[in-house]
């Protein structure tokens, strides 16, 4: 394989990461997407925009988020020294707020007053509803009817925050269908509406823009670790649905060749069962929701229904930059089953007093597998992307208990 000079230069001006990415959308949306790109390119170099972002990140979101040495988990697993990047301590309880803040400030600059969003677990929906409340914007959140049922606490939160949650009844009634419905709304209300996408996917410039807004995770991690350990990490690990928390942590370190990087895909009931959401492990490149990327599909190019215990990972695709990082071999993508994630969920709760979201419990599930094989001076950083309060009903059901 050719060794590239940098893994951090993408995308190209047409939004491609290798063969992935692009702008596969209906003509009605193209002028909006080009206007968004222009507005983002202007904002990203505008010191005033950066100042505004930094202010809200510090005083509203509560950044920097802690980097926490998980001492008991480390002792229990007996290998790598494990640090948790505590994104679940952010306002709204997950990393999603970093990106939503950026997009909402951008929407304000563009004069858009109606915000739409898709959500799976509801973390992005809650973050969008929160910032819309903060800035007095109208907020409509599309959420699969199945997810509305399994993530009730977040639906309630969104309603409290003044957002309208629209249950989506089409298709598999999960995140994929919520995104279809959000795109249909955008096509219909293109003049006054800003589509706030929750992950590093969709048409260019979304994958790059969302990554940039999330990259603060990796930048803080580098600085915090330097202070605590006097050096950088040896490995990084994060769960990947669309992959925004993962890319937020990884991007800073892509050009540090000594850093091993693991993305964890949801393997549901096992990749061989066919009931999973592991797009890279079990899929192939195709085109959906505005970008080319690894997707789960049948031989006719029809998109398959994903399965995961975690609503936030229950999506048959992945962000295009992850697909690229897989193709060039920079990041290793590993599947983690529902059962392994449930073990991670319980272990972290019992040993560290932290109830993780089911999404990042997948990362913990793989830490349990990888960390014991590493030496004690190996520093591993795990993205703890969200808190698990929303998942207690799902977990109780799977463990045979009742709340």
């Amino acid at each position, binding site marked *: 394989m050719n060794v590239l000079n940098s893994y951090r230069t993408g995308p190209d001006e047409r939004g491609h990461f290798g063969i992935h990415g692009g702008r596969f959308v209906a*003509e009605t949306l193209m*002028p909006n997407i080009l206007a968004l790109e222009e507005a983002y390119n202007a904002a990203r170099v505008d010191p005033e925009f950066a100042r505004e972002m930094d202010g809200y990140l510090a005083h509203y979101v509560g950044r920097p988020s802690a980097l926490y040495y998980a001492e008991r988990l480390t002792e229990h697993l007996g290998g790598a020294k494990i640090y948790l990047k505590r994104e679940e301590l952010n306002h709204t309880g997950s990393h999603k707020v970093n990106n939503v803040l950026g997009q909402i400030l951008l929407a304000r600059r563009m004069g858009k007053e109606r915000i739409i969003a898709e959500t799976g677990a509801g973390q992005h929906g809650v973050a969008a509803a929160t910032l819309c409340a903060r800035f007095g914007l109208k907020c409509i959140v599309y959420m699969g009817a199945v997810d509305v049922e399994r993530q009730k606490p977040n639906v309630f939160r969104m309603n409290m925050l003044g957002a309208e949650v629209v249950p989506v009844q089409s298709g598999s009634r999960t995140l994929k269908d919520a995104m279809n419905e959000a795109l249909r709304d955008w*096509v219909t209300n293109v003049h006054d509406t800003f589509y706030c996408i929750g992950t590093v996917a969709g048409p260019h410039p979304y994958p790059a823009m969302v990554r940039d807004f999330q990259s603060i995770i990796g930048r803080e991690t580098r600085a915090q670790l330097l202070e605590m350990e006097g050096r950088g990490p040896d490995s990084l690990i994060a769960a990947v649905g669309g992959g925004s928390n993962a890319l937020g942590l990884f991007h800073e370190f892509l050009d540090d060749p000594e850093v091993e990087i693991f993305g964890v895909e949801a393997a549901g009931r096992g990749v061989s069962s066919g009931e999973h959401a592991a797009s890279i492990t079990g899929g192939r490149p195709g085109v959906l929701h505005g970008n080319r990327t690894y997707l789960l599909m049948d031989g006719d190019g029809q998109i398959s229904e994903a399965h995961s215990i975690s609503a936030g990972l229950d999506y048959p695709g992945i962000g295009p930059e992850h697909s690229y990082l897989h193709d060039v071999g920079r990041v290793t993508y590993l599947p983690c089953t529902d059962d392994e994630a449930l073990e991670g969920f319980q272990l972290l709760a019992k040993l560290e007093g932290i109830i993780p979201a089911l999404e990042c419990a997948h990362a913990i599930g793989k830490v349990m597998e990888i960390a014991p094989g590493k030496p004690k001076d190996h520093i591993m950083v795990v993205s703890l992307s969200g808190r698990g309060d929303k998942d207690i009903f799902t977990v109780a059901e799977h463990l045979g208990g009742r709340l």
Partner: protein
Amino acid sequence: MTRIATRFAALATEGRPGLVTFITAGDPDGATSLAILKALPEAGADVIELGVPFTDPMADGPAIQAAGLRALRNGQTLARTLEMVRAFRAGDDATPIILMGYYNPIYIYGVERFLGDARAAGVDGLIVVDLPPEEDDELCLPALAAGLDFIRLATPTTDEKRLPAVLRHTAGFVYYVSITGITGSATPDATLVSQAVTRIKKHTDLPVAVGFGVRTPEQARAIAAGADAVVVGSALVEAVRTSLDAEGAATPQTTETVLSLVRDLSAAVRTVKRQSAA
């Protein structure tokens, strides 16, 4: 001349706008769908759009979404859709057929193989909703090289600045999307549509067909008065749905329900006289 160019030239000579009918291939099942397809020209369809079912039709409203899912449940694939076109061509070598759908099934079939098979089957043109000019390298340019027309959608958001880029590699005709929205949703305003068609015609000599949201013979007549052709889709697909039995299967009425609407639409469109339809 291609079948599309020949048909629009004939409409211009007749001095009337054309009727473009959309049905979803394989809806509700392969045999019924083929029977409808074969009978469309006789019922008054001048040009046929054959929808290629896709699980995630982002630009389509509930009617066409449901039609695609009915077809997929009954085993429709892109290969079977091409087979339908081949069967149609055995009895009709004049009516243009345009495949309309989304890129992924074509991408997975393989672009080169698809273009060869589509042309051999008798397909005349392609409308692929999620391929804007920015992605012309994917399918538009290879399709034109293979002798298939690539018909682009122009929309109310396609401004003067962008229109030349949209029209640059468009062939066959231009499909003007009459509303900002998904198929079968809002009702287009005939006056605004007519103005938009006039605007587009300043940039191209191609015929302009107008669709999205045209449901009734009256609407078809009003829209056709300001365009070279009018497209009706959701209403025909909805006619399929209303004719199905409780299990969603075709009934003896299915074919006739669709064709009777096509006849009414055609009669309405044929009352419109145009000075120059090209």
